């Protein structure tokens, strides 16, 4: 600090002289500038001295100190506490007026009392942590159920009064969730179809059953992998974006502003996202199925000696309309889960930027978990339905 002693930046020199004449006591004289620049060296020298000399009484002569700033005060506080920690006593002598003024200004004696640390927060035991975690989980579940209820009510309101829905926002989200995601969905599905065809052909070729590659790719993609892959991509792209957008709006009090203007935040923020996602997810799934079949076709025609017409005919004979619509139905359920989770996590944001980050991560992880869980339930349901 450009302190009261000098406004000119001092050189970083501070000398330590040690006198051991009196047994049981150590006399240390500091001279020069005790400041930000000299502090690290002075601390190192003093710690080395304390480690070497085990004396109960230490006298610190400050007569030669020409300049001190708050870093120097911190050094002196460190001296006192280090000596105390070793069950010794430190006495400061010949304190120049400027140094005394600086020590008074910073309440030196108070600083020498044991206090907080800036690195470790108060720790709690494991039982308390378990309790905090359990309460947090129940609170989150309660909040989720309330949010689910609000979303259902908002959906009913929008269905009964369609003009409540913000059409332009819905179209914008349809573009963001659907059109903008199409290239990556198409590419990944194409590669997935290609990989499935290639890997299955290795086994099927041993039985001369190459043609069933078409069946495997088309059936697995339309019933299972198409909807799941699309859902995972939409969760990563759009679910996280929903959480981040709404979370940022929440911490900047935009959500509160909506509420105070008499606008239902669920209708305003959740419905356009939810309806847009529900509308475009089946279409994205359809594209995913088509591009995966295209990938399989490429492998079948180029590597398995299948004809184009033969591959397509086998695909058509394998699939029936139920399979395609089953995939669409899944896509709708996944869309509801993704948009609901993304918006829920956004509304749960607390704090600042870190809260938004947590919500974004949580939106993706929760969405993927719910997608896989619901898919498992649907598979079991289908199994019993088909007998």
């Amino acid at each position, binding site marked *: *600090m*450009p*302190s*009261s002693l000098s*406004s000119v930046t001092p050189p970083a020199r501070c000398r330590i002289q040690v006198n051991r004449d009196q047994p049981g006591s150590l006399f240390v004289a500091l001279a020069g500038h005790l400041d*930000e620049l000299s*502090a*690290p060296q002075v*601390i190192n020298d003093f710690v080395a001295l304390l480690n070497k000399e085990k004396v109960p009484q230490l006298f610190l002569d400050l007569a030669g100190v020409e300049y001190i*700033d*708050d*870093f120097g*005060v*911190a*050094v002196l*506080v*460190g001296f006192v*506490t280090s000596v105390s920690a070793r069950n010794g006593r430190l006495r400061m002598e010949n304190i120049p007026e400027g140094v005394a003024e600086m020590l008074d*200004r*910073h*309440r030196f004696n108070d*600083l020498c009392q044991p*206090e*907080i*640390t*800036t*690195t470790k*927060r*108060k720790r709690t035991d494991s039982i308390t942590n378990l309790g905090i975690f359990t309460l947090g989980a129940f609170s989150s579940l309660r909040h989720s159920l309330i949010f689910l209820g609000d979303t259902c009510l908002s959906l009913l309101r929008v269905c009964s009064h369609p003009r409540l829905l913000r059409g332009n926002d819905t179209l914008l989200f349809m573009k963001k969730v659907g059109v903008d995601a199409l290239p990556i969905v198409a590419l990944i599905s194409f590669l997935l179809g290609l990989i499935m065809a290639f890997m299955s052909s290795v086994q099927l070729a041993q039985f001369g059953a190459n043609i069933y590659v078409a069946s495997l790719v088309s059936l697995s993609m339309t019933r299972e992998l198409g909807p799941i892959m699309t859902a995972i991509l939409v969760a990563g792209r759009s679910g996280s974006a929903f959480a981040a957008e709404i979370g940022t709006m929440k911490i900047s009090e935009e959500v509160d502003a909506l509420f105070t203007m008499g606008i239902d935040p669920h209708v305003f923020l959740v419905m356009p996202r939810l309806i847009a996602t529900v509308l475009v997810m089946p279409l994205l799934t359809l594209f995913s199925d088509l591009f995966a079949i295209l990938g399989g076709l490429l492998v079948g025609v180029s590597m398995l000696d299948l004809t184009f017409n033969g591959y397509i005919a086998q695909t058509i004979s394998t699939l029936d309309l139920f399979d395609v619509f089953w995939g669409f139905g899944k896509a709708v359920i996944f869309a509801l889960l993704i948009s609901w989770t993304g918006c829920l996590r956004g509304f749960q944001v*607390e*704090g*600042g*930027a*870190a*809260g938004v980050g947590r919500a974004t991560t949580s939106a993706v992880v929760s969405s993927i978990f719910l997608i896989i869980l619901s898919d498992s339930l649907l598979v079991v349901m289908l199994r019993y339905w088909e007998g």
Partner: protein
Amino acid sequence: MRSDSKHATAKPVIKVRDLVAGYGEEVILKDLNFDVLEGEIFVILGGSGCGKSTLLKHLIGLCPPMAGSITINDLALTDEQNLQRVLRQCGILFQSGALFGSMTLAENVALPLQEYTDLPQTHIDTLVRMKLALVNLAGYEHHLPAEISGGMKKRAGLARAMALNPQILFFDEPSAGLDPISSAELDQLILHLNKTLGTTMIIVTHELDSIYTVADRIIMLDKRAKGIIAAGDPAHLRENSQNSYVRQFFNREPSPHKTGLE
């Protein structure tokens, strides 16, 4: 001015010469020339949208000048290496305090000390307590920014800005969003720090009460002129300025054509 001859012999620490400031192709301010003297409280004043914050961003190196030069302690800000050295000598208090929300106040203040010094953690802890005590936040070390008021956030931001004992402190609208008492307390804190530490302070504001309390010298920016329309002692300018906008500003008079009171 708080003291007429306080800085009569002080040397300039910031020199702005023929500065043209703006974003992209858009010129916000042009032909700016002024000095900030060592140890003074220098206020950049003006109405909304006149370019105060733009000028501040240029002074702290966040935006490069479109033309002209800014030197701090004779180091030009246009040089990347100089910029790092200069920023090490400066502290900045942003409008919101800009505290890191995931860190406690103590951790916020400790951050620059941990990054720039080789001090042991125990000494950093002591310094943090001293800095927080300096801004009247002793005892709030473990609080998160979300748990304290706006005025306290500003003071904690000030403690962090002062962590490395900067030679120059920049303030972006320090009174914004504060109640009159908190605002007055912050003004007194600024005066106290300037008096006891001798830190040069550059304050961007349009709060007249603060200006009269703290300013040694001001410059006033205008949107239409895209530059400085008045410079000097605020009390003198209020009484004697020939510029009608300056008089209107200091007398808090609304523009008739905007209020329909013509």
